[in-house]
């Protein structure tokens, strides 16, 4: 590496190489700008206008400044949706991390044949979110669902899972945890496999119990992987949409922020206000991401 460095420096000064780098990076930059930057900029722009496709402002938007944001702050439905989204994050991120860790530890055991375990890990992850929502909607159906069937066999009562908000919340969380813990497990499994085996051998020689070596070796060395998993999981949890949407048959008794954005823009055709809500959601996600990034840098230092 050190021997190659002078050559690298020389070529960096070489204009034609720089030009080459420019041209090589240009397509990716343009593509990113087109699919990421332009829509976000357009979203911010839209959020400053009154624009409903249901009246004349659909073709002639009226500039309202921060009016849409003021409306959102006094909109009870916005705060409920935001609160619901936070609750989803609060329950499903730790939930998925714990279940994912257990799955990763299980998959890391020295099985004779490893592929069935790995495949089992991958399946929920490969399933589209809406399918997971629809499948679990049937599981929780009060009449035909397997959950109520088990409850009744155990001597319990049939519960109206999908139409009782408190029960629906837990049904949604359970589905999300089932769906997302395999993604967490995949990341953690990779993290587990880079922990040197010698550490465990040394700990065993020193007389540490398995429990101790888990707390003293596995968990500390797994922290970077756990953090990465937590970041990705938190960001996607803030965007939770598919599963609660699919589980409610088009209802909105339990509504996340993403669901409110969709209803406002796509169903009610209120693009100005819908954009403002989406901007607020974007800011929340951005805030969380920055917080985590700072944390990671702190950990690196």
């Amino acid at each position, binding site marked *: 590496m050190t021997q190659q460095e002078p050559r690298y420096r020389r070529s960096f000064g070489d204009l034609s190489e720089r030009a080459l780098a420019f041209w090589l990076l240009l397509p990716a930059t343009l593509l990113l700008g087109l699919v990421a930057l332009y829509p976000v900029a357009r979203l911010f722009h839209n959020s400053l206008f009154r624009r409903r496709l249901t009246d004349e402002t659909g073709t002639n938007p009226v500039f309202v400044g921060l009016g849409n944001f003021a409306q959102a702050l006094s909109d009870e439905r916005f705060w409920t949706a935001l609160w619901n989204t936070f609750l989803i994050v609060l329950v499903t991120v730790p939930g998925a991390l714990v279940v994912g860790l257990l799955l990763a530890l299980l998959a890391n055991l020295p099985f004779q044949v490893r592929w069935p375990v790995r495949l089992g890990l991958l399946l929920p992850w490969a399933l589209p979110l809406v399918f997971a929502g629809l499948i679990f909607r049937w599981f929780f159906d009060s009449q035909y669902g397997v959950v109520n069937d088990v409850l009744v066999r155990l001597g319990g009562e049939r519960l109206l899972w999908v139409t009782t908000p408190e029960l629906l919340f837990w049904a949604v969380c359970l589905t999300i945890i089932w769906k997302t813990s395999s993604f967490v497990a995949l990341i953690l499994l990779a993290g587990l496999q880079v922990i040197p085996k010698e550490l465990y051998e040394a700990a065993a020689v020193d007389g540490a119990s398995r429990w101790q070596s888990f707390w003293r070796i596995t968990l500390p060395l797994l922290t970077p992987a756990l953090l990465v998993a937590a970041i990705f999981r938190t960001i996607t949890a803030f965007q939770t949409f598919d599963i609660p949407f699919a589980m409610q048959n088009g209802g909105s008794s339990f509504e996340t922020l993403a669901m409110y954005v969709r209803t406002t823009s796509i*169903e009610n055709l209120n693009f100005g206000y819908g954009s403002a809500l989406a901007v607020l959601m974007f800011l929340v996600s951005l805030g969380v991401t920055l917080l985590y990034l700072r944390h990671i840098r702190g950990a690196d230092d």
Partner: protein
Amino acid sequence: MKRFFWLLVAVLLASSGLAQQTRLRVFVGGQQRPDVMRKILDLYQQRNPGVRVDIEVGGATSDQQQQYLTTVLASRDPSIDIILIDVIRPAQYLASRWADTIDKYLPAATRQALLRQYLPAYTQANVINGQLVALPGFADAMFLYYRTDLLEKYGFKPPTTWEEVIQQAQTILQRENNPTLNGIGFIGAPAEGAVCTFLLPVWAAGGDVTNAQGQFALTVEQAQRALQFWVSLMDQRVSPPNMAEKPQDTIRQEMQAGRWVFGTLFAYAWNRFQNDADSQVKGKIGVVPLPAFPGGRQVSCLGGWQWVVSDFSRNKAQAHKLVRFLSSPEVSKILAIEASNLPVFPALYRDPDILRVNPWFAQALPVVQAARARPQHPRYAEISEVIRVTTNQVLARQKTAEQGARDIVNRLQAIYSGR
């Protein structure tokens, strides 16, 4: 070389032939019998060799279809030329400028003559601010379906009031003592049909969302009574406690499997009960007008589907020609026979070919003529959401009928006052 030359000629001829052919794309919902629509379009293609019509099948419910169409139309996508839309949507299509209005292609005299042939409710639904937005494809209304075998077994006549329905359901459920049999099915899931569920008792009591001048007129008391009526069916155990889970087509499927005594459903259900291979109730289903509500009159909820030409179509003239065919008596008759869709022409309700397949159409005309229309408003999507979600919440017992009624009235008032 010579063979290559002839091949080239053949390719050129074929491609110019393709270029002359107009291709139209028609969107219909999954529940609007795409199989029957295909037959009708094949007929049109036979008669118009220069036109090829493709069919695109959308979601099962009216709201699912519109969600998809909104993204297509808001992005000015020209790929769809003709759309079959629900009776509640023409006002929104006009306000959003998604429809290429029919007027341009109709001389005033023809327009008047044409509109006089249809049931007046559909002329009213499709003419918004004097502009003809769409033409009706088929009519629809809600009816009471019942099990003829069960009613006969206990000596009951088809009911004409809800008191009778409740009493008959109670007796039959008790005597049959069959845990898989349910009493009265109505639309309780938060889909579009729940708007009708809410409005039926309101209309029966003489109320409506707006008055004759189009101003908001619904009172909390009217709304509360309506919600209370449906909740009381669950309280009296003639409807199961999970009605909030039931969209229309679930009730249709369950009734088809013999699990309901009564069901309030739109007209499409008849054909499925009689003709579906898996139907357990062939020949055991009767249809009557919806019963009278306590202290009220008999009403039904107007449904029906309209053909509209997309404003982003690149073949508008051809599309209009096809829409005229699709809204003709000939097609109305095919739809009535093959899909039990109610005709939009009053004369067809006496057509012997149609009555042979759908004997109950003979008494359906007055129901359709008296059926009430849901509110016409460019922001209907919001009105619908308020009503169907709140009605669903009351049926799920998340809110009392009184709380639900207050929510509906307050939020509708906000929409009508432009907030």
